């Protein structure tokens, strides 16, 4: 365990000493819960419509594919007109685009980022490597199938997919959300143990709480 994650005693400006336990104090330990649909279908549909029209992407470029997001953020492809925008922090985002392969080191950060995102939230796997390892199929440091570790709603094939393909993916994502089929976050909550077991199998340096939001 890293030094800064150990329990330590800190003296405050008022001279009072107190104990700080980083892993325990700063995070909620409660596991994620399934988010039920609204009682009335019309209301749920309305919610889903609203969600689908405000896809806020977490600006975390986890791999190569991130480079094709820049053109989307700029005037030529202009994804904003489709209700898609990028946010710098997980708290403000509802779509996590895993842009390609994930090394185990990034997987750890990606999981934390995903868990910090607010419900409802979605994941898109971008490129071949998220589907079956892609060209890093024999690498010792990258995961091969993303859906073992995070609930993926949609995949876009390509190495890397072009901005147009990404846009098509966002459009499909909208359709899924509107149809109420983008249930990845609930899947994650339902199968939390399974996901955690998978994650811990490959992340050897597990110096973080199991879940935090």
């Amino acid at each position, binding site marked *: 365990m890293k030094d*800064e994650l150990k329990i330590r005693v800190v*003296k405050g400006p008022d001279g009072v000493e107190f104990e700080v336990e980083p892993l325990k104090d700063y995070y909620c330990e409660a596991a994620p819960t399934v988010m039920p649909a609204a009682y009335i279908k019309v209301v749920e549909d309305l919610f889903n419509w609203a969600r689908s029209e405000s896809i806020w992407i977490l600006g975390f470029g986890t791999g*190569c594919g991130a480079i094709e997001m820049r053109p989307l953020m700029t005037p030529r492809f202009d994804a904003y007109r489709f209700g898609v925008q990028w946010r710098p922090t997980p708290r403000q985002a509802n779509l996590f685009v895993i842009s390609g392969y994930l090394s185990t080191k990034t997987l750890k950060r990606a999981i934390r980022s995903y868990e910090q995102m607010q419900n409802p939230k979605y994941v898109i796997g971008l490129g071949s490597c998220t589907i079956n390892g892609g060209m890093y199929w024999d690498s010792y440091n990258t995961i091969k199938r993303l859906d073992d570790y995070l609930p993926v709603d949609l995949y876009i094939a390509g190495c890397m997919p072009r901005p147009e393909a990404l846009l098509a993916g966002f459009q499909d994502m909208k359709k899924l959300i509107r149809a109420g089929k983008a249930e990845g976050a609930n899947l994650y909550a339902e199968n939390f143990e399974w996901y955690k077991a998978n994650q811990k199998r490959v992340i050897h340096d597990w110096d973080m709480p199991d879940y935090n939001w």
Partner: protein
Amino acid sequence: MTQNAPFFTPDRSQYPAKKADGTLDIDIASGKYLKLWQGPNHPGITGNMSVELTVCGDEVVEGKTHVGYLHRGFEKLMERRTFIQCFPIVCRICVPEPDFNEYCYAAAVEELAGIKSPERADWIRALILEMGRINSYMMYLGGQAGALGLGVIGQWTTYARDLMLDRFEELTGARIYHMFIMPGGVRDGLPEGFDKRMEETLREVESTLKDVYDVMFCNAVFKKRTVGVGYIDPALVDSYGITGPNARAAGVAKDVRKDQPYLIYSQLDFEPVLGQDSDIFTRADVRRRDVLVSVDLVRQILAKMPRTGPLMATVPNVLHWKIPRGETYIRGECSRGEYGYYLVTDGSGYPRRVNVRGPSYTHAVSLLERMIVNLNISDVASLMVSLHTYPPEIER
């Protein structure tokens, strides 16, 4: 404002104290210091990497570069791929400017296998490398401005870069990973009407650069934040292995294209762009002017290149291509500095060892860690961008 606050000591340079062995004495528990992680999920970071900052107030007292988030083990993977199978994988080592990987790898294989790529292929290779350089710099300019809040620059440069990607697409068949320069030559010649469309694109790049000059370089805010900040002592250039615009901005005329001309660069007319002040502003300006050089080089190449002739040398059957034992190093001047491939072969059908020397390796780790000390937190992103680092070439 700190004068009136007795809580802080005005002379911040006494922090951190040094231990007897010379290492910094940073006791987090003392409450004087704070750990601040910039990245990997952070808008002010150059790609998927992170810097672990120890700050005292808003001043960085220690910075540690953390890389490996993009580590795929290329050098290991290549050891179990045949020489031709390595060709598609190398470009993935650097996303914004992948072609140097293709070129250096191909040239290394050719040298050890005793193959000479045809002249026409060399011209096309140089064309691609210069196009990639323009792209890389355009991205950099957007990033450098963005790191200081000048979002509009990125909007413009990304558009210009995208036009260049269109040229890449029609020439190579792909936007980002071109996989066009293969051991032995290149895949194909220029498509019909390429020159004309290229000229239009170059004009757009030039006009964008003019706007960038007006809005970014002649901008009081930008100057205020960059002039005199992030100074690299020219004396550090060799001891820290600094190359490319980072060295040239410090007045050291390091440019592989001139020092050890490769491909057809000896037949082109250009001078390395130099700067004197070695700060963030100068580095940005050197790169801006370097784009103009590249634009000119692309024009020269298109005017001078042969239009007929073979594009591929005769290579052995690629399925069982064996290369005798040997080792070599091939370098090229990429937008960030010296890019090189060290290739060792052992007579089998697979490379014995490939080592990729990316310029960011020294820039983003040892150099950044040295320069980041005593910097204001708000300048960290700007400094990092000004070193123009791409993490995948560090960890590969």
